[in-house]
């Protein structure tokens, strides 16, 4: 059953072809057998999952009303608070932190009846594009264990790709759902900013973060999205998102824009070939393909690497060893010593790098030339998209410039690592939704 999709699982459970306990057991056994070499999960909630499965079987036996995802095994990225469970954002500074409450998105899935099998690995505080920045060791790409699964939602992408769960939640600030989805060959959806409540998501960059699903099909991703979306009084940035239309899309009525700036140098030849094949297929199916332009694309990643670290430097100030998390207190030390010692020991190098960058961008004397200028650049990028959408219904681009790279290949040069997100960040800056779809392969790896 572990290869099955959400609808198939729902069907076999309601038809009583398999008990929920058998179903959950199957998934847990597969994880125990195979996750040793992949390391998608940081923790499996085994006992709880089995107990919940028992309760679901009771509900089914009694003929009680079932939730939309009753008994469905899912996984949560390690930055989503799930009450009573460890949540560490892939960091040492939150090693023994137990979530006091659940994130809204988590609560919504729980209320729909899902069973969380565990929390998945991620780059520390979502900072990374390979999951190699996790304080708990990297995750391997199930399609090629010598390669990265992408990041920062690498664990969630790997869990879905390895059939450990039919779907998982991740978060995306600059591409962290879409890029690992592309590297592992799954679907990844970054919803419109504000579509999903960020309450209970350990914040990285509050004006860019969004929670979203990773799954093996668009309809499954849609199902999860429809459950987690919605305005939330606990997150004032949430927007009302209309329900998706039931009608089938008529490709002959769709105009797809191909922004030329995404097909230049830096894009791996085999990736380009795979994408161009898809464009041709869409054209043959009747869609109108238009070359379009997002002229300020080259400024998106630089602007992102000023805005995001600035927000990071503010959001991570709370990790100071006072109320929770790693707290290093020396007998003769003072209050400030606790801050310095706890943060030095608890944060990894990439986190420190971004905090310094952000502190720089916001500091007196540099604020105008860096942060303010980056925000102006962001507005220009938004305008690029507005203009493009006057002529086309959607845009099609590669998700990542390459297929999955080897473990250790980019970890020693932060800037090279940042460039993995070159095609994904513009969307976050503009607050737009974006979906990563498998598009064939390059050198045998998913694109």
């Amino acid at each position, binding site marked *: 059953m572990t290869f099955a999709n959400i609808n198939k699982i729902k069907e076999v459970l309601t038809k009583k072809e398999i008990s929920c306990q058998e179903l959950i057991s199957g998934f847990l056994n597969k994880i125990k057998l195979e996750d040793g070499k992949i390391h998608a999960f940081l923790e499996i909630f085994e006992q709880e999952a089995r107990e919940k499965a028992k309760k679901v079987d009771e509900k089914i036996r009694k003929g009680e009303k079932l939730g939309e995802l009753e008994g469905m095994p899912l996984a949560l990225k390690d930055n989503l608070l799930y009450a009573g469970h460890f949540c560490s954002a892939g960091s040492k500074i939150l090693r023994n932190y137990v979530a006091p409450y659940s994130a809204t998105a988590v609560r919504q899935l729980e209320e729909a009846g899902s069973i969380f099998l565990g929390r998945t690995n991620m780059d520390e505080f979502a900072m990374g594009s390979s999951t190699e920045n996790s304080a708990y060791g990297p995750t391997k790409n199930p399609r090629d264990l010598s390669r990265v699964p992408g990041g920062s939602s690498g664990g969630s992408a790997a869990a879905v790709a390895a059939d450990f769960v039919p779907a998982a939640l991740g978060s995306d600030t600059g591409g962290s759902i879409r890029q690992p989805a592309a590297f592992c060959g799954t679907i990844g959806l970054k919803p419109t900013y504000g579509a999903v409540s960020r309450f209970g998501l350990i914040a990285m960059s509050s004006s860019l973060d969004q929670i979203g699903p990773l799954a093996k099909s668009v309809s499954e991703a849609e199902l999860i999205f429809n459950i987690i979306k919605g305005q939330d009084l606990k997150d004032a940035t949430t927007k009302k998102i209309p329900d998706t239309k039931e009608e089938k899309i008529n490709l002959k009525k769709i105009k797809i824009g191909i922004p030329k700036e995404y097909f230049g140098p830096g894009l791996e030849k085999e990736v380009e070939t795979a994408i161009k094949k898809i464009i041709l297929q869409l054209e043959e199916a009747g869609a109108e393909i238009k070359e379009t332009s997002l002229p300020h694309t080259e400024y998106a990643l630089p*602007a992102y690497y000023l805005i995001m670290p600035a927000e990071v430097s503010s959001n991570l100030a709370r990790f100071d060893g006072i109320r929770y998390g790693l*707290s290093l207190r020396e007998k*003769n030390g003072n209050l400030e010593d606790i801050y310095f010692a706890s943060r030095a020991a608890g944060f990894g190098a990439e986190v420190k790098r971004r905090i310094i960058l952000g502190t720089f961008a916001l500091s007196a004397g540099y604020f105008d030339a860096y942060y303010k200028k980056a925000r102006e650049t962001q*507005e*220009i990028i938004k305008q690029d998209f507005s203009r493009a959408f006057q002529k086309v219904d959607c845009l099609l681009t590669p998700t990542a410039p390459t297929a999955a790279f080897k473990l250790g290949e980019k970890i020693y040069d932060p800037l090279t690592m940042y460039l993995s997100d070159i095609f994904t960040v513009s969307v976050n800056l503009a607050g737009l939704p974006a979906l990563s779809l498998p598009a064939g392969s390059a050198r045998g790896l998913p694109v």
Partner: protein
Amino acid sequence: MRLNTALIEHLAQLARLKLPAAEFSRDLESILRYVEKIQSLKRATAAPDATSANEFLRTDLTTDCPPQEKQNIKRLFPEKEEDLMKVKGVFGNQL
């Protein structure tokens, strides 16, 4: 603009971080050179005042934290005295 060791040390102090500034300087400098690309964007446009003109606000009412949640939060305190969180004095032995 150079992110030299002295500036990094100053920023680290502001961010309450202890780090080997010299080790971080090379990577930070190359990142800074990259992000400075935006300086070449001549087109002027106003930066927005707020992150979004979202009007989704709730009534400003105090609600009690659910007791279980309160317990969960208190359990996380690194240092406790009875029911209270314990910290070093703010005005104690100073910086």
